[in-house]
C-alpha cells in the first residue's frame, strides 16, 4: 500500500477492491449506521443508489460508504531525536511567563492534561515552548491544533522559525502541501479526524472558539487522535462555562496568566446606549456618539476595527462612513476571499479601518488599533467573543492602551459578563503588578 509512514497513527480509507485489509468505515449498530471516522450516526436516507449508506458529517475529508475500509498502522514514533527538542527560539520570557511555562512543563512531564488560561496578549504561544521542546526531545509526536484555520496559518510560520530543527506538517482543508509524517503537526481540529492514537501531546489552541466548543464531533476527534496514555494542553483567553466548571471542581489542572506580556492591564469594555441603531442605519445614519468618535479617529489618523453583528450590516455601515469622508477602509467577513489580503493592508497602513463580523475576533493582531462594536448586545456576540474583541486593543508595548466601546440597545447579561470577566482578570493582573 505504498509509503507505510502515511498510515502511522492515522485512520484512512483503503483504495482499491474490498479484499484489501482494514476495518469497515461504517458499522451497523442497533439498526443505525455509525461512521468510524467521525463517530456520528448516519441518518436514514443518507445513502447512494442501491441503499449504500454514506457519511455526510465528515464528507469533506473524502466520502466514506458502507463499502469503504479504514486502515491504521499503530503509531511507532519513528523520529530521530533532536537536542533541546529543536528549539531555536532566541527570545526570552518575562518572570510571569516563565513561572507559567514551568507549571505547564511540570504537568506535561507527568502526562497530565491541563488548561492554560492566559489573557489576550499574554504571549501564550511562547509560554508553551519549554513544555513543547521537552516533549519533542522525548521523541513524542505532538499536534498543535486549533478550531480556526486563521490561527493555524498565523502559528505555522512561527513554529517553523522557532523550532527550526523539527520537521513539521501543516494540515487544513485546501492545504497546498500534501500530508507527510512529521513529529510536529499543526492542523485544524477537523483534520484530527484522520488520526488514531497518534499523539502523545495534543495542544488545542483557542479551545473555546467556534466550531469546536460544544461540538461532539470535534471533541471526539481530539480524544481519538490522542494516545490513550497521552495528555493534552488546552489554551484559551476566554474559557467557556463548562471549562470553568471543570477547573472549579478540580477536574482540570489550570495555570493562570492574567497579565499581558508588556505588564499593562486589559482595556475595559465601555458600553454606550444606542437606541434603535438599526432603524437609523436604514436611514443612512449611525449613532451620533459613534460618528463623533470615528471622525476624531480619522483626524488623528488612528486605526480602528468596527465590529457589526451580521454580514448584511457591513455594506450600509461602510457607506455611512465613506459619506463622512472616511474613504480608506473596507469590509471583511468569513466568506470574503480577500480576507487575508485586507488584514495585511490594514497592518501595512494602507487601510485605516475595517468593518468586520466576528471573524476578526481572534487570531489577528494589529499593533495599534481601537475597537468599536455596533450592536454588542446582539446574540452573535457571546461573552467570549466580546472579551476576545476587546483583546485586539493594546497588544503592542508601544501602544498598551486604547478604547473598546460597545454601542448597544440594552445592557444584556452577555455584555455584563464580558465586562465582569475583564474586571476580574484585571484584578488578578493588578496583584501581579499590572499597570492600568
Amino acid at each position: 500500500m505504498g509509503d507505510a509512514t502515511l498510515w502511522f497513527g492515522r485512520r484512512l480509507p483503503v483504495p482499491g477492491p474490498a479484499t484489501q485489509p482494514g476495518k469497515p468505515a461504517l458499522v451497523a449498530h442497533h439498526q443505525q449506521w455509525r461512521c468510524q471516522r467521525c463517530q456520528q450516526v448516519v441518518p436514514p436516507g443518507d445513502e447512494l443508489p442501491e441503499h449504500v449508506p454514506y457519511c455526510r458529517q465528515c464528507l469533506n475529508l473524502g466520502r466514506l460508504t458502507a463499502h469503504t475500509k479504514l486502515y491504521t498502522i499503530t503509531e511507532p514514533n519513528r523520529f530521530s531525536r533532536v537536542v533541546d527538542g529543536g528549539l531555536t527560539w532566541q527570545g526570552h520570557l518575562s518572570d510571569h511567563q516563565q513561572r507559567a511555562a514551568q507549571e505547564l512543563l511540570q504537568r506535561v512531564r507527568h502526562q497530565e492534561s491541563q488548561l492554560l488560561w492566559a489573557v489576550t496578549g499574554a504571549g501564550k504561544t511562547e509560554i508553551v515552548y519549554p513544555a513543547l521542546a521537552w516533549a519533542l526531545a522525548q521523541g513524542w509526536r505532538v499536534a498543535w491544533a486549533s478550531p480556526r484555520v486563521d490561527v493555524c496559518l498565523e502559528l505555522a510560520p512561527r513554529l517553523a522559525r522557532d523550532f527550526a530543527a523539527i520537521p513539521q506538517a501543516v494540515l487544513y482543508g485546501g492545504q497546498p502541501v500534501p500530508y507527510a509524517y512529521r513529529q510536529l503537526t499543526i492542523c485544524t481540529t477537523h483534520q484530527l479526524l484522520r488520526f488514531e492514537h497518534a499523539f502523545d501531546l495534543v495542544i488545542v489552541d483557542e479551545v473555546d472558539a467556534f466550531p469546536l466548543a460544544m461540538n461532539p464531533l470535534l471533541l471526539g476527534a481530539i480524544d481519538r487522535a490522542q494516545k490513550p496514555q497521552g495528555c493534552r494542553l488546552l489554551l484559551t483567553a476566554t474559557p467557556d462555562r463548562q471549562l470553568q466548571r471543570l477547573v472549579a471542581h478540580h477536574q482540570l489542572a489550570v495555570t493562570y496568566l492574567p497579565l499581558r506580556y508588556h505588564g499593562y492591564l486589559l482595556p475595559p469594555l465601555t458600553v454606550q446606549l444606542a437606541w434603535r441603531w438599526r432603524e437609523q442605519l436604514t436611514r443612512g445614519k449611525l449613532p451620533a456618539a459613534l460618528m463623533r468618535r470615528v471622525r476624531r479617529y480619522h483626524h488623528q489618523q488612528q486605526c480602528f476595527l468596527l465590529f457589526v453583528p451580521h454580514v448584511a450590516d457591513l455594506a450600509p455601515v461602510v457607506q455611512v462612513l465613506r459619506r463622512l469622508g472616511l474613504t480608506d477602509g473596507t469590509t471583511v467577513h468569513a466568506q470574503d476571499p480577500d480576507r487575508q489580503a485586507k488584514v495585511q493592508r490594514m497592518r501595512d497602513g494602507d487601510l485605516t479601518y475595517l468593518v468586520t463580523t466576528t471573524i476578526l475576533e481572534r487570531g489577528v493582531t494589529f499593533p495599534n488599533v481601537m475597537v468599536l462594536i455596533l450592536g454588542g448586545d446582539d446574540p452573535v456576540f457571546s461573552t467570549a467573543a466580546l472579551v476576545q474583541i476587546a483583546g485586539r486593543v493594546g497588544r503592542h508595548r508601544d501602544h498598551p492602551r486604547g478604547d473598546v466601546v460597545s454601542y448597544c440597545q440594552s445592557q444584556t447579561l452577555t455584555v455584563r459578563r464580558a465586562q465582569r470577566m475583564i474586571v476580574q482578570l484585571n484584578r488578578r493582573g493588578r496583584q501581579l503588578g499590572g499597570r492600568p
Partner: protein
Amino acid sequence: MRPGCVWCGRRFQPQISLADLLRWAPLPQPQVCVACAQRLKPITGPRCPACGRAQATATICYDCERWGDDFVNHAVFPYNSDLKAYMQQYKFQGDYRLREVMQPILRRALAREVYDVLVPIPVAAETWRTRGFNQVTAWLTDQPYQQALVVREATKSRPQSSKTRQERLRAQQPFQLAPNAAMVLQNQRVLLLDDVYTTGRTIRHAAQQIYLGGAETVTSLTLAR
C-alpha cells in the same frame, strides 16, 4: 425531529402560509432553507441565444460565433461560485443527497422544454465505480428518459475539469450509441441533459451521435453555463 436543510444542514422553519393551512392539502416539503435557496439565482435577464449564458445583450456570444453552427442550449443557472460550490460537494465529493436541491428546479426547467425524448449525458464505468451515481440522471424524478448514449471505453483518460480549453476542444468523440438507440431516436426531437456547459464540446459530441441515430432535432439543457 425535523431534518435540516439538505444543503447546509441547518434546521429551519418551512414557510407556511395561512392559505396552505386552509387548503388542508399535504404541505410542500422544502428541501433547502431560505439562505441556501437565495444562493441559487437562475438566469433571468438577456442571454446568448445559442449557449444560454447570461450576458449584457441578447446577441450571440463570441464562443458560439466561433463554433459557427446553430446548436441551441438552455441553461438554468450561471456557473458562479455558488454553483461551483454545489457541484464540488455533489459531484466531486459525491454527496448524492444534494440531488434533492435540484430535483424540483430541473422538473420545472424540463417542463418548459419542447422535446420527445430526453437523453442524459452518461458517465464512464470508472466514474460509476468511484462516484456511485450519474450526477445528471439523479436530478430526474419521474421524467422518462432514454440512456441512448454510452461512454466509449478507454477514452476517459483525465477528467474534463482538469483540461485546458484547447485540450477540451481537441478531445476525441467520447460517446457511442447504445444498442438499439436508433429505435428510440428515429425522427424524434431529442433533448440532451448535462450538468455544466463549459466549452460546448461535450454536448456537441453527444449531439453528433444522436443525429447519427436518426434524430430529427437535437437541443440541450444544462444546469449551469
